[in-house]
C-alpha cells in the first residue's frame, strides 16, 4: 500500500483527474477505493486541495452531446450502400460471370449419351439457353441480386528469389521497380488483383512504386503491412531481427496487426522498427545513406550485433559462417565496405573484434580470441 502512495506522492490535480482509480472513488466509490484514498489523504495531507479541485472536475466534466437524427443515419447508410453497389459493379466488370455453363454442359453431355439426333439436340440446347437467358434476365430485372456470383479465377503466383550472393533488380508489371537483396524472396499474384497490388516479402527489398491511386501497393511482412500509393521505401524483414521500414519519398501507411491493429503514417526520413518478439514499435529517424548502402554494393555495420553481421555476410557472399567459440553477447561492430571481397571485410572487422578466420570455399570459420 505504502509504495503505491509513494508513486502518487507527486500527483497534481491533472494526475488525479486522469487516474481511473480516483475517478472510481469519486463517481462510484466502493470499500477498496475508499480505504485507499482515505489512507492517501492521511499520508499526504498537503494534497487535499488538489484532490478537491480534481473531484470538482471529475464530477462536472461534461460534453455537449449531439445525437444524429434518424434521417441522417439512414441517409449515411444509403450513401454507403450506393458506394458499395458501385464497387461491386467494378469488380463484376473485371471478372467472369458464367450463366451456370457447367450445368448446361453437363446436361448436354447426358442427353448426348442417350443418342438423340444432333440437329434436334442443337435446337433443344438453343431453346434451353434462350429460356435460361430470358429467365435470368427477368430475374435480374425484378429481383436484382445484391451479390453477383463470381467464379474464382485460379490465382497464379509469381515468385522471385534472390539466393545468397545474388541481388536482383526487378521491374514489376505495373512499372514498379524492386531491388531484392540477397537471401530474400518476393511473392505476388501474377499481374496483381484489380483493386490492389499485394506482395509478400521475406528479407530485404527496396521499392520504387509506380503511381496508381486506384490500386494501393501493399507489402506484407508477417503481421505488418506497408501501404503506398507512389513512393520509394526500404523494408528489412529477416527472421529473428527487428523489422525495419524506412521511407525515402512520398507517404506510406504502416499497419501492424499484433494483438489489435495499429496504423501509422510515415513521412520521408521517418522509419519504424518493429520488434515482433517483444511487440515493440520504435520510431526511428534513419540515415538514408546507410539504409540504401546495400543497393550500392556497400556493406555498412553500425554498432551491429554479431548474429546480424553473420546473416549479412552469409547472404552477401553466399557462404556459411561458423563460430568455433561464442563471441561475447554484447559484441557490436562498425565498419563500411564498398565492393570488397569477403577476405577484406573479415580482415577489416577482425581488427576491432579480435578474431581469426579461415575461408575454405564457401565455409568460413571465426575464432574469437
Amino acid at each position, binding site marked *: 500500500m505504502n509504495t503505491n502512495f509513494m508513486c502518487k506522492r507527486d500527483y497534481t490535480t491533472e494526475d488525479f483527474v486522469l487516474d481511473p482509480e480516483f475517478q472510481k472513488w469519486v463517481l462510484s466509490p466502493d470499500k477498496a477505493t475508499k480505504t485507499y484514498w482515505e489512507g492517501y489523504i492521511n499520508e499526504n495531507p498537503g494534497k487535499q486541495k488538489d484532490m478537491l479541485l480534481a473531484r*470538482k472536475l471529475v464530477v462536472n466534466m461534461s460534453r*455537449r452531446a449531439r445525437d*444524429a437524427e434518424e434521417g441522417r443515419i439512414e441517409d*449515411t447508410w444509403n450513401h*454507403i450502400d450506393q458506394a458499395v453497389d458501385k464497387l461491386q459493379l467494378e469488380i463484376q466488370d473485371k471478372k467472369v460471370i458464367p450463366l451456370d455453363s457447367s450445368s448446361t454442359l453437363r446436361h448436354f453431355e447426358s442427353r448426348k449419351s442417350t443418342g438423340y439426333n444432333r440437329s434436334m439436340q442443337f435446337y433443344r440446347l438453343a431453346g434451353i439457353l434462350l429460356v435460361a437467358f430470358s429467365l435470368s434476365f427477368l430475374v435480374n430485372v425484378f429481383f436484382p441480386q445484391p*451479390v453477383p456470383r463470381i467464379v474464382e479465377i485460379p490465382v497464379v503466383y509469381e515468385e522471385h528469389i534472390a539466393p545468397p550472393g545474388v541481388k536482383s533488380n526487378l521491374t514489376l508489371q505495373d512499372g514498379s521497380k524492386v531491388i531484392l537483396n540477397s537471401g530474400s524472396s518476393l511473392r505476388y499474384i501474377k499481374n496483381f488483383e484489380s483493386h490492389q497490388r499485394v506482395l509478400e516479402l521475406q528479407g530485404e527489398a527496396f521499392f520504387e512504386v509506380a503511381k496508381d491511386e486506384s490500386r494501393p501497393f501493399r507489402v506484407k511482412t508477417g503481421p505488418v503491412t506497408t501501404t503506398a500509393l507512389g513512393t520509394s521505401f526500404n523494408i528489412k524483414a529477416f527472421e529473428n531481427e527487428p523489422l525495419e521500414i524506412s521511407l525515402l519519398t512520398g507517404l506510406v501507411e504502416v499497419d501492424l*496487426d499484433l494483438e489489435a491493429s495499429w496504423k501509422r503514417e510515415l513521412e520521408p526520413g521517418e522509419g519504424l522498427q518493429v520488434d515482433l518478439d517483444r511487440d515493440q514499435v520504435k520510431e526511428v529517424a534513419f540515415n538514408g545513406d546507410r539504409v540504401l548502402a546495400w543497393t550500392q554494393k556497400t556493406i555498412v555495420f553500425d554498432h551491429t550485433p554479431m548474429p546480424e553481421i553473420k546473416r549479412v555476410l552469409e547472404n552477401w557472399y553466399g557462404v556459411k559462417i561458423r563460430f568455433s567459440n561464442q563471441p561475447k553477447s554484447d559484441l557490436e561492430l562498425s565498419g563500411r565496405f564498398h565492393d570488397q571481397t569477403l577476405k577484406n571485410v573479415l580482415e577489416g572487422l577482425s581488427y576491432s573484434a579480435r578474431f581469426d578466420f579461415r575461408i575454405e570455399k564457401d565455409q568460413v570459420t571465426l575464432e574469437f580470441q
Partner: protein
Amino acid sequence: MKYQENPISFNDRNELWLLLRNGEREGLEGLYRLFAHELFKYGLALVNDADFVQDCIQEVFIDLWKYHQNLQKADNVKVYLFRSLSHKIYRESKKRSKWKWEELGDEGTRQLSLESKEGELIGVQQEKSLQIKLAAGLEKLPLRQKQAIQLLYFEQFSYEEVSKMMGINLRSVYTLAWKAIGSLKKYVVSMLLGLFFLI
C-alpha cells in the same frame, strides 16, 4: 454506463465482422446499424459539423468494404471502428483546417443536451453552470487533446486502447490528456474564485 450501451453481445458484433470479412453485405450493414449512433455522437463531439462527420463515417464503412478481404480477426470491433473514425477525422480535418467554432458559440448549447456522469452519481451536487463552461472549454481544445479526453473519459476506452486508436504511445496519450485537463482546470479555479468574492 459501460454495460447498458448495447443490448447486443460481443458475439453478435464478432459474427457481423466475420460476415463482412466473408464479403457479406449484411455484415457491413449490421455493423453500421449497431454503431452508427455511437460513432456519430463521438464524431460530433470532436467536430461540430454534421456533414463532415457524415462524410468521414461514410468513408470508414466504404473502406471497410473495399478492404474486407484484408481485414484481420478483430479482437475488439468497437475499438477498430473508433480507431478508423478517429484516424479519418484527424486526417481530413488537417486537410480542411478552418473550423468555425466561434460561430456556434453558446447559442449552440441550447439545443444540445449536456452529457456528464450524473447517472452514476449518488448524492453529489453538480453545478450546471460549471458543466456548461467545461463543455464549451472542451470544444475549444486542440483536436488531438479533445480526442484523447473524449475517448478516455466519455467513450471509456482504456489508455492502451486509446494509444492504439490514436497511433501514439501510452505516454503521449497521457500527456495529451494531461494538457487538456490542465486547460479545463482553469474554469474550475475561476469558478471557485468567483464564489469566494460573492461571499
